[in-house]
């Protein structure tokens, strides 16, 4: 579990990036920090691996204040995946993945074996191992980034808008990939995003931030969708524009038992099953997230 206790970050010029921020991030779940740019979400995330040190307040991982940990050692135990992958352009895919294990003293052979395993986990062909980042597509680079993040088998993964630079089709694939990997590995993931759809898709817990790292609302996607706490949240999730309020289209003919759904603006957004003219009820627990081995054990993140 990661815990923020009234954390603030004020820069030397007096700008307050984060003010009095408190949050509990449960172990083995995905927590998405979502907000527009300038909301301090990345700053908050970077406090976990001491890339940013708070001006006041404490950040604790399993009850240990990170300020007492040596930054380099701390970072080597936490996976970090960033936008534009952040790969080393002069090193091959394999060398990029083995970078951190090699720093921590893992033997070359072991690191390579593990890297090949990880390439399989993130869906990369073995034949790409000797390529250089510039020879890969953006989506492949991001996959390498994820593999590198997983290389030291960390309990915590920090993901800083990892998919915002890839196109929507690839982003979709990568998001599904994250859910699949999470179902398998059950890490404590802190995911920063400005895309509310991404947040709702990935987050077990979604935290909506406003300027200065103020939490406007936190909860499951369902809770936030059902009850936007403020007008800001309503606008942010698109409820205000009627994007989230769907009605059955009356003009479009039915396709068997299916009906076309339109949003508040009249745009078609999906299909709903209506056997015998009655709408079906579903359980708002995505299959990908209900994983039996995900338990909140103390001391594992």
């Amino acid at each position: 579990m990661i815990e923020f206790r009234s954390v603030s970050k004020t820069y030397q010029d007096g700008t307050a990036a984060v003010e009095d921020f408190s949050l509990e991030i449960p172990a083995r779940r995905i927590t998405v920090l979502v907000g527009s740019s300038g909301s301090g979400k990345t700053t908050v995330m970077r406090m976990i691996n001491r890339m940013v040190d708070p001006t006041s307040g404490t950040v604790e991982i399993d009850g240990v204040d990170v300020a007492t940990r040596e930054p380099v050692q701390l970072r080597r135990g936490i996976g970090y995946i960033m936008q534009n992958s952040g790969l080393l352009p002069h090193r091959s895919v394999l060398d990029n993945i083995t970078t951190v294990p090699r720093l921590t003293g893992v033997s070359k052979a072991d690191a390579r074996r593990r890297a090949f395993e990880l390439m399989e986990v993130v869906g990369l062909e073995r034949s790409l191992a000797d390529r250089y980042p510039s020879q890969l597509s953006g989506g492949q680079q991001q996959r390498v980034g994820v593999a590198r993040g997983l290389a030291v088998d960390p309990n915590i993964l920090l993901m800083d808008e990892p998919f915002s630079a890839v196109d929507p089709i690839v982003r979709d694939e990568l998001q599904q990939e994250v859910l699949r990997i999470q179902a398998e590995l059950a890490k404590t993931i802190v995911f920063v995003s400005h895309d509310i759809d991404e947040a709702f898709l990935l987050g077990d817990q979604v935290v909506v931030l406003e300027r200065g790292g103020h939490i406007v609302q936190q909860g499951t996607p369902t809770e936030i969708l059902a009850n936007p706490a403020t007008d800001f949240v309503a606008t942010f999730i698109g409820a205000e524009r009627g994007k989230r309020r769907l009605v059955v289209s009356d003009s479009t003919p039915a396709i068997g038992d299916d009906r076309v759904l339109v949003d508040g603006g009249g745009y078609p957004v999906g299909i709903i099953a209506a056997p015998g003219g009655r709408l079906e009820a579903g359980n708002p627990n995505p299959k990908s997230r209900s994983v039996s081995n995900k338990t909140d054990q103390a001391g594992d993140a």
Partner: protein
Amino acid sequence: MIFVQAIAWILDGGHWVGRAGAGNPAILQRLGETLGISVISVAIAVVIAVPLGVLIGHTGRGRLVAILASNVARALPTLGLLSILLLLIGINAVPIAIVLVLLGIPPMLAGAYAGVEAVNRDTIDAARAVGMTEWQIVVRVELPLAASLLVGGFRATVLQVIATTTVASAFAFGGFGIYLINGLAQNDFVQMLAGAILVTVLCLLIDGALAVVQRLVAPRAFPAARRIRLRRRRAAGHSGPRPSRGRGPSRKVCSHEEDLQRRDRGHRRDGGDRPDARRVRQLEEPERRRIGWR
């Protein structure tokens, strides 16, 4: 013609060997003197300028001071400074070396800090975030990526130093400049021209060799591909440049021009996913809206 005479003067085998003096130009001895003082001066300049430049590039601090100091050093009147130092220290190699070092530092410093500074900040940030120490960032990330510009700075330094050794010859120091000084004094224009040619050819040879080195350490994006290609070429007995065949980045060492071409062809180095973006653009408008493409 004087040019032909100068070439003949250089090609005269007797002019190369023996000790200098009594009408013997002793080109080999002068070459040794030129290279000797140059190697020492360049080495000192590198030892001073590279760590300083890397430090400035890595921390981003002290850049203004470095630029200012470099410009001042560049503007120093070589001959004047040399005269003063010779008067102060005495007529030996030390003041000459000091002047050469002072002139050699600015380009090396500029190459070092510009090279390190040009490394993508995101790459460095990522290296730090995964747990590299500052030293590891410098040695394993910044230096390899700055290698090309570092060698570029080194090239400029070497040329600057070798060219300036000729000035030092005015003060009882040997080197190729002695032919210019003696030639002028003796109205021997053939000797003067020969001296000028010798210095120029030496500079061109060294610069050419360093240009090859610079290409070899260049962006280092595809060293494996390069090694294989060189091995293959050696095995096939090729000596000249191979006729280019095929396309794609692995074909040869990545130059800036190629980089631009590749960008034009739609491969971006910054992780943008152009081909797929093109795929999206071909979709119908409602389909694009559905997947949220803006």
